[in-house]
Structure formats: structure tokens, C-alpha cells
């Protein structure tokens, strides 16, 4: 079987529910902290799920805020920071690969446009669609953040925006393919997503995927008492080059794979195992998807154990930050690389007693001596992503 190609990480940046500093966020993870709190994005008291792991800071307002909402602005910020961190100049040989979960309605625009509408759309223009802002389409353009990042950073190589809850993994895999093919010399990869949107919270809760517990009572993923995940949000960026190319230090090495199988909710175990087949060799440390559904968590552990053995250590970045959708693989990449560098693995935040099953879910920060780690992420419908991080 063809091995998944590996590339070097030359720069990174993120915006997470714990903040923007990689050192600070890593300390929080190692301390077993959770960013879960009452939803501060809007008054969610009437929602079934009223907790969230949201980014506390607001993005810096630039002239791009005419076209981008909050998460798009965060995406632009992390792309800018990561490229700056890498020290690599923009050029025709730098590509730009964005992954985001999908369009979300901007209700503050939609409500006035629909206030006087009829359900059959009769007279829709004069009843309010004429009130849509002239930039409404640009604000809802799937590749608006991608295009504005290219313009601002002067990145003129190839690139695309990938869509879906595993779009971060898709973007990473596509960037690695572009580097392998020699189409570009450097790739800026960005994942950004938020589940903390009104219709998303309602939908995920209706499907039984979200925790309905209060902030103090949210059970951790992989706990027998787990009853659903915490919705989160993040933006993260990696700058990639072929191994040994260019100047500057190589922070870590990454491989990525994506897959889908049409399942209504989580992807099947076969799909996850298929992704791992090219990535898992020799890995004994896993950052799990952690949907906090006992049956799903146990099935995930069983699938992972087939590749890593039953004694592999299991952590879960998303136990601390909530589910991050398309941003998950990039956040996992940075978090794991930092923990591998420190030779210390974070516990599953909030986990006191793991459900029975294979793998060793960590309940406290644990010293490690391994140089590689796997990470799994999942989304609906039937979407999966996997990465492997190596330090040498």
C-alpha cells in the first residue's frame, strides 16, 4: 500500500477557546482544564444545550469585516500569523488551502429580510429581499476568507476552499498532495469552524449529539456517563513545506487523510480504519475524536486499538475545547506537536473514570517518550479525518 506522504510544518497559529498563545493553551491542556462554560455567544437559556467552548476574544476589525464575519476574520488572522511565523515570503509558489464546515445563516441580515415574508415567497423582493445588503452574497461566499487571505498575503499559487465538517483534513491532505506533485513549494493550510450557531445547536441537540448538562456536570468523552459533546469553535493554520526544503526549523512533520461514507451521523469504523491504514504504523499515542457518546466512543477505541494495540495512550484535545468541526485536525496537529516536544501528554479533560474498553484513556498528564502521535476527527454526514504528527 502506498504510504501517505509526509511534509514539514514550518509555521502555525491558532485561535481557540483557551486563547491564541500556543504556550498558554498547551499549559491549559496539560492541566486538564476545560473551556466549557455557559454559552457567551448569545443567550442560550432556552436551548437544550446551553454550554459551549467559545473563543473569548473578538477578531481585530479590519477593512475585511465588510465581507467576513467573526470566524472568517479569525481565519484570516491565523493565516497571516502562521505565514509570518514561518518567515516564508509570499509568491506564486505559495498555495492556500482552507477548510470550513459550511455556510451558516447570518440571522441579523436574514431577519429583516424575512420579517414581512410569506411562506410561499409571494412578493419576496418587495417584502424584504431587497433589504439584503449589496455585500450579502460576498459575506456568504464559501471562499470569501480564502480569497481575501490570498489578496492580503499576496499568495498566488494554487489553492481551494474545502467544505464539510472534515474540511480541515481535506485541506491538509490536498496541500500535501500539491507539495508532493511539485505544484507549489509552500502551503498555508487553514481550518475554521464554529458549532455555536443557533440552528446548529438546535439541529445537533435534536439528533442527540450535544450534551444537555450544565457547565459543572458535563461528562467527558470516553466516560461511561458521557451524554454528548460540547459545541466548540476554533481557527488554526499550518505552513507546510516538503521535508528538507527551504530555510528555517521544522516544527514537526504531518501526514493527513480524509474519507467519507454517507452514514447519517458518525462515519463507520471501516472508514476510520481505512484512514489509519496508511498512518498508524508504530503509533502508540492517539488523540481521539471523542464524541462523548458511550457506544460511539467505545467503537472508536476498538477501531484504533486494532492498529495501535490495546495499551496505546488515548488523549482528546476536544475534551478540553469542545468539538471543533473543520478546525479540529489543525488544532490537533499543533496541540500534539507541542505535547510531543514537551514529552508530556494531556489528560482527557474532565475524565475521572473511563468506560471499560481498549486503549488507556488518560486521566492525568502523563510523561511520554514517543515521537509520534495519531489524531482522529469525525463529522456528519459520515465524514472522517486523520492526521499523524512526527517530531523526527
Amino acid at each position, binding site marked *: 500500500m502506498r504510504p501517505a506522504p509526509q511534509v514539514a510544518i514550518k509555521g502555525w497559529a491558532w485561535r481557540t477557546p483557551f486563547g491564541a498563545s500556543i504556550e498558554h493553551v498547551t499549559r491549559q491542556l496539560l492541566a486538564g482544564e476545560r473551556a466549557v462554560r455557559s454559552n457567551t455567544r448569545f*443567550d442560550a437559556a432556552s436551548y437544550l444545550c446551553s454550554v459551549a467552548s467559545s473563543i473569548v476574544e473578538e477578531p481585530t476589525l479590519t477593512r475585511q469585516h465588510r465581507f467576513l464575519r467573526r470566524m472568517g476574520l479569525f481565519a484570516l488572522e491565523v493565516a497571516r500569523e502562521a505565514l509570518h511565523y514561518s518567515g516564508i515570503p509570499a509568491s506564486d509558489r505559495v498555495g492556500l488551502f482552507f477548510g470550513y464546515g459550511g455556510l451558516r445563516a447570518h*440571522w441579523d441580515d436574514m431577519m429583516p429580510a424575512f420579517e414581512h415574508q410569506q411562506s410561499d415567497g409571494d412578493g*419576496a423582493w418587495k417584502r424584504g429581499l431587497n433589504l439584503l445588503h449589496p455585500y450579502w452574497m*460576498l459575506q456568504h461566499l464559501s471562499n470569501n476568507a480564502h480569497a481575501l487571505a490570498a489578496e492580503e498575503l499576496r499568495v498566488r499559487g494554487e489553492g481551494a476552499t474545502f467544505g*464539510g465538517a472534515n474540511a480541515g483534513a481535506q485541506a491538509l491532505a490536498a496541500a500535501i498532495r500539491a507539495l508532493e506533485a511539485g505544484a507549489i513549494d509552500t502551503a498555508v493550510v487553514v481550518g475554521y469552524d464554529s458549532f455555536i450557531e443557533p440552528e446548529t445547536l438546535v439541529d445537533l441537540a435534536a439528533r442527540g449529539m450535544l450534551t444537555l448538562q450544565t457547565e459543572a456536570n458535563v461528562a467527558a468523552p470516553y466516560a461511561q456517563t458521557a451524554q454528548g459533546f460540547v459545541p466548540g469553535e476554533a481557527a488554526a493554520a499550518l505552513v507546510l513545506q516538503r521535508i528538507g526544503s527551504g530555510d528555517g526549523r521544522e516544527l514537526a512533520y504531518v501526514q493527513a487523510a480524509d*474519507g*467519507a461514507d*454517507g452514514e*447519517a451521523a458518525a462515519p463507520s469504523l471501516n472508514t476510520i480504519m481505512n484512514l489509519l491504514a496508511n498512518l498508524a504504523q508504530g503509533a502508540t499515542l492517539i488523540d481521539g475524536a471523542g464524541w462523548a457518546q458511550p457506544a460511539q466512543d467505545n467503537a472508536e477505541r476498538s477501531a484504533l486499538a486494532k492498529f495501535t494495540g490495546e495499551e496505546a495512550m488515548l488523549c482528546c484535545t476536544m475534551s478540553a475545547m469542545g468539538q471543533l468541526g473543520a478546525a479540529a485536525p489543525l488544532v490537533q496537529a499543533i496541540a500534539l506537536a507541542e505535547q510531543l516536544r514537551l514529552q508530556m501528554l494531556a489528560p482527557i479533560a474532565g475524565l475521572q473514570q473511563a468506560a471499560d474498553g481498549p486503549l488507556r484513556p488518560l486521566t492525568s498528564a502523563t510523561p511520554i517518550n514517543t515521537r509520534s502521535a495519531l489524531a482522529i476527527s469525525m463529522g456528519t454526514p459520515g465524514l472522517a479525518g486523520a492526521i499523524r504528527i512526527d517530531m523526527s
Partner: protein
Amino acid sequence: MSARPVFVHGVGAVTALGLSWRESIAPLAAGASAIVPVTEFDVAHFPCTVAAPIRDFKHQGDRRIALACAASEEAWTAAAIAFDDSQQKKIGIFMGAESGRAPFATVHALTRAAGGKAAFDHAKFGKQARVLAEHCDASQTSPAAVTSLLAKRYGATGPAVTISLACSSGASAVAEAARSIRLGICDVALCGGVGADVDPLMLAGFGRIGALSGRGISCPFDARRDGFVVGEGAAMIVLSADRGTAVVELAGEGRSLDAYNLTAPDPDGDGATRAMRAALVAAKIDAVDYVQAHGTSTPLNDAVEAMALRRVFGTHLYKSHVSSVKGALGHWIAGAGALGLLCAHEALMTGTLFPTANLTNPDRDCDLPHVLGGAIKKTVNTALVNAFAFGGANCSLVLRRCA
């Protein structure tokens, strides 16, 4: 490892001129245009009141998924990829697709659940929207829902990629599929694009920004052009590393970013030029017999594309022919580039060069060897397909008749 070749084994489409690609070919060759006044919903006072809807396509659920499944079935059947037990081929799915949209009535119901006033009422929405959520599966409007379902349907275990790159989504998906085959990541790819944007919000949104034709005509490269017309449909292609009985090779792909402006192309056409040149270099050719242009019927885009074509091909351009299918079927947005590839494929397979429907008075700024009126018949050995998106994401594909 040297890169593997990529061959076109089957194509399929659902268009406003036919519920299959096979049905669509004759009207396209005749210069027919499917652009009609919109009657699917009330478009009174909209900036543009015409579109190219597919009216006799019956389906349930998300329209993008239904269109893509129908087109995929035609392409897959035509490809007749042989799978034997000794050689399990790895299949990848690569779709150009944007997010799906809830029907207008559902959006209306959601706003009512949020209080129905000018401001969103979370206290009401948190309770009242629950009932709506129980009756619709929001995951089906994910941009990746089409890809995921096709992966299940065709047993794909390779990459499952969804590119949401506005007007170059479909072409970029084809390019990504070709790269994956060349690198040995998959052996067979089902790829293409789908657009289902004949929708009140899309027509209003594009209309508000001034991108649509106020005259209600899609006439790429014509002096009368004043904006694009929204169309809908799906175009799918089966690619394989094995030549088998294939007649056409996907010989090169090129992509670039303008890094210029969210709404306007680089006036120098630099990004478009770089994408075309990259595709030609990859195919190891410097001229083609036919160009299926992006040609949206917008004043600036068409002029810039024409300029870029002249710059890339020089005088060789006038030995070829150029046309755009958007005069006939409107602009499919995420599906546009994949539809363009099917037109170029037809040119290579049968020597039929579709005309640019509604092009009667070519603009002097768009001086190109147009195909006017009806189809031209000629031997075509090489063809170029262009797709250029809002935001300056460009993709060009080169097809070549196998020796």
C-alpha cells in the same frame, strides 16, 4: 515514481436541456438556450427574472444530491469500469459543491421560530425551532453531503473531497481528482460539480451585488452582455489511471490565485494566464484546437478572459475555436467547470463544437474565434477548459485525444 496518466472513461449530466448528457447534446449543438422566465417562485421586481432551471427533474430531498446522483449514474454506467477480484481499485470522490440551502419555506419557518421580527429572538428560537429540526436533517445541506453519499453509493475508500470554490469548484475538483490518480492515491475517480442555485435567496443575493443580467440574457462575449444568468445542473466524470477503451486523456491541469480582489478579476488577466499556462505545460503542448471558455456574460470577466486567451496562445488562437456553454445553460456556479469539461470532451469525441448560444454581436474587446449560431464540426485533438471564480481562484484543464 513517474506520474500516471489520467483517462476519461465516462461522463454524465443533468441539464436544463436534457435529463442526461446524451439528451443534452443535440440541443446544445443546435444553439438552443434553456434560459426562461422564472416561474418556480415569484421573481417580481428581482434584478434578474430569468434562469435556466431544470423543470422536469423529479426528486426528493436535497436537490444538489439528487442532481449529482443522476449525473453520476450516467457517467459510471458509461465508464463501465471493470473490477476484478485480483485488482481492487481504490476509488476517490471529488465534488465541486457549495452548501445546500433549505427551501424558502423552511427558512421562513426558522425566522418565525425566531420571533418573526427584525431581530432574532433566541428565547423563542431555542424552543420553537426544535420541532423544525425534527423534520429536516441539516447534515444533508452540508457542502460535503453530496460527496459522502456518492462515496457510499460507489464504495469509495479513497479521498472524499468537497471543493467549495465558487465558480471554479467543479473544475478544481476534477483537477484534484486527476492529481490523486497521478500520485497513485486512488486509481479511479468520480468527479465533477453540481449547482442548484435557482433559488430566491441566490437570485436576490447575486442580484443585489449586480452580477446578474438585467436584460435577462446570457450572451458570453457579446457586446450586449450585462451579467450572468443562474443555471442549475450536475456534470460528472469518471477518470482512471488505466486507459482501457478511453479515447480522451486529461493531459494537464493548472490552478492559480489572482490575489487581487474579491469580486473583480485581475484586469491584466495574470491569474487566468498562469492557470492556462500551467495546464498547457503539464500537457506538454502550447496550442489547442478548441477552448471551452469560462465566459459568464459579465462585462469585465469575458473581456479579461479573452485578453488572457490571446496572451497565452498568440496568433495560434485564431486556428482554434472558442465557445461558452453558459449562453445555453446559464451559470451553474459550483458545477460550471465540470460542465465545461463535458463540452470539451464532446468536441474531442465527435468533433462537435457547441456554439455560444445568444452570441450574435461579438464585442470587440472579446475578439476570439467564436463558434456562432450552430455547432461546428471539425477534428479536435486538444482542448482547454477554463473556470475562473469569484475571488480569483482559477482552474484550467487540458484534454487530449489519445494517440
